[in-house]
């Protein structure tokens, strides 16, 4: 059962003026529930426009979007409810924090949902636990925290709404490698424990290769590829032709293959690379074998 489905989804900015420009055009997608999906593409390829359609922040100029089989724009007045089901974490989400305490900020979403006090409390604590916020941080002002901590508070603010689909737009932009691994690890954990669908927009192919099951490649306002990670990265050449980078190991293995080494095509993480190389070494593989 697909949790999000689009039919001929098209969005044109400034329609009817000389600035008219299609940000996404004719997108037909079916996103399966419970998957962790990476979205990659150039700046300006339409990624952000696409994800803002999934939770009804943008209204398509043409085409339809279904969440759980329901056309979300059938009742435009109830679009707010869609936003509780499809949670969106924007880029640099720490700039949206505004409450007096971390606790209150995380509670903003659940409060807007109109939940009971106990339920809000339960959800806030659960979300805080997921992103690794400590109890003594909950009563602090969000403005006192470090950059990485602020970001985790902002992510918790969306997780606390317990959406079926969680979309994160470059959640690791501007963080150091440690903070990056930490946040992605927590998102993966959340995905595995709660079985929620996760869409991860990222510029880092390494992260996409390491953490996601499927990859959606956007190019020139369209979906170019949408398949399992293995399948997508086996088409490394096409991805590079689009001007996108592939994981570094993929590149290494691509050139090894070109030089005639008998290495498999679907290597895109360091772990796999290690296995593949060990196998060759055991076999005593030679160049031009």
């Amino acid at each position, binding site marked *: 059962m697909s949790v999000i489905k689009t039919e001929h989804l098209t969005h044109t900015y400034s329609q009817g003026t000389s600035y008219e420009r299609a940000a996404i055009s004719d997108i037909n997608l079916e996103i399966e529930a419970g998957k962790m999906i990476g979205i990659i593409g150039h700046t300006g390829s339409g990624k952000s426009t696409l994800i*803002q359609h999934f*939770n009804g*922040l943008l209204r398509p100029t043409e085409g339809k979007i279904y969440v759980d089989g329901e056309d979300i724009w059938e009742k435009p007045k109830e679009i*707010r409810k869609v*936003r*509780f089901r499809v*949670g*969106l*974490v*924007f880029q640099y*989400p720490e*700039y*949206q*924090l*505004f409450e007096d305490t971390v606790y209150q900020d995380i509670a*903003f*979403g659940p409060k*807007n*949902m109109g939940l009971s006090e106990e339920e809000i409390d339960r959800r806030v604590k659960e979300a805080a636990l997921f992103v690794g916020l400590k109890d003594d941080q909950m009563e602090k002002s969000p*403005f006192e925290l470090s950059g990485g901590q602020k970001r985790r508070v902002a992510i918790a*603010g*969306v997780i606390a*709404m317990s959406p079926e689909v969680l979309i994160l737009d470059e959640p690791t932009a501007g963080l150091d490698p440690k903070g990056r691994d930490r946040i992605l690890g927590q998102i993966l954990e959340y995905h595995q424990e709660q079985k929620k669908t996760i869409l991860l927009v990222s510029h880092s192919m390494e992260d996409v290769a390491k953490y996601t099951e499927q990859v959606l490649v956007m190019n020139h306002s369209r979906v170019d590829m949408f398949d399992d990670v293995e399948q997508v990265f086996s088409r490394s050449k096409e991805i590079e032709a689009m001007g996108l980078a592939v994981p570094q190991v993929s590149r290494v293995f691509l050139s090894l293959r070109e030089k005639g080494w008998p290495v498999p095509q679907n290597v895109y993480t360091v772990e796999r690379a290690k296995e593949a190389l060990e196998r060759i070494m055991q076999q005593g593989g030679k160049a031009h074998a």
Partner: protein
Amino acid sequence: MLKDITIGQYFPGHSVLHRLDPRMKILLTIGYIVMLFTVSNPLGLGVGILFLIFAYAISKIPPKMITKSLKPVIPIIIFTTLLNMFFVKGDPLVDWWIFHISRQGLLTAVVMTIRIICLIAGTSLLTYTTSPITLTDGLERLMKPLKKIHFPVHELSMMMTIALRFIPTLIEETDKIMNAQKARGADLESGGVIQRAKALVPILIPLFVSAFRRADELALAMECRCYRGDVGRTRMKQLHYSWQDGVAAAVTVLCIGMVVVVNIFAPVVF
């Protein structure tokens, strides 16, 4: 909604008015405003209106921009019109209950409305044809004499430049924050006045925080490039008066002169 703001908007172009020296444009605009408010009969007012139409015609600014610039001041226009209509004493035209409209009142109201419309249209023409940076540059040069009395002319114009420069940035930022809060279920569209005002808090606080952060960063960046105010500062674009400025000044002075003559010799109507 945020994109409808036209105050201070610049309309790029290559007309004579666009090429005039900003100092000259500011001075002529001031002269025109003074003329508008000293004019004392219909003939003079007619000259003022014709002058404005002529200026708009050579600037090639689309006429619909006039109505666009008038939109935000409509309440003020209505307010002054009504005040003048009901409170200027004179020969009564209508006398009903507490409402008294006099002939003079009606006349003042009409003249006042025309004056305000011309005032807004005239000053809008200045900003439509002058880029904000050039405008503040012109202002700075015009106010230079005030430096003798330790008036911070340069600082003031730098503040204006920065403020104008950051309007689009802040609008974009507001948009982003609004979307982020909407994604968390913030309801910005429904409810009464108080509820709507309350709904603005989650937008205003992050906006202020980021404005302060930007100001801090900008100050640091300016210091890194050795900015220290007006001391020893030179300009890349020097302002020069050209023959076109002379022509513009002559035309405007001629127009003002006509109004003065009309004021002196024609009967004072208002």
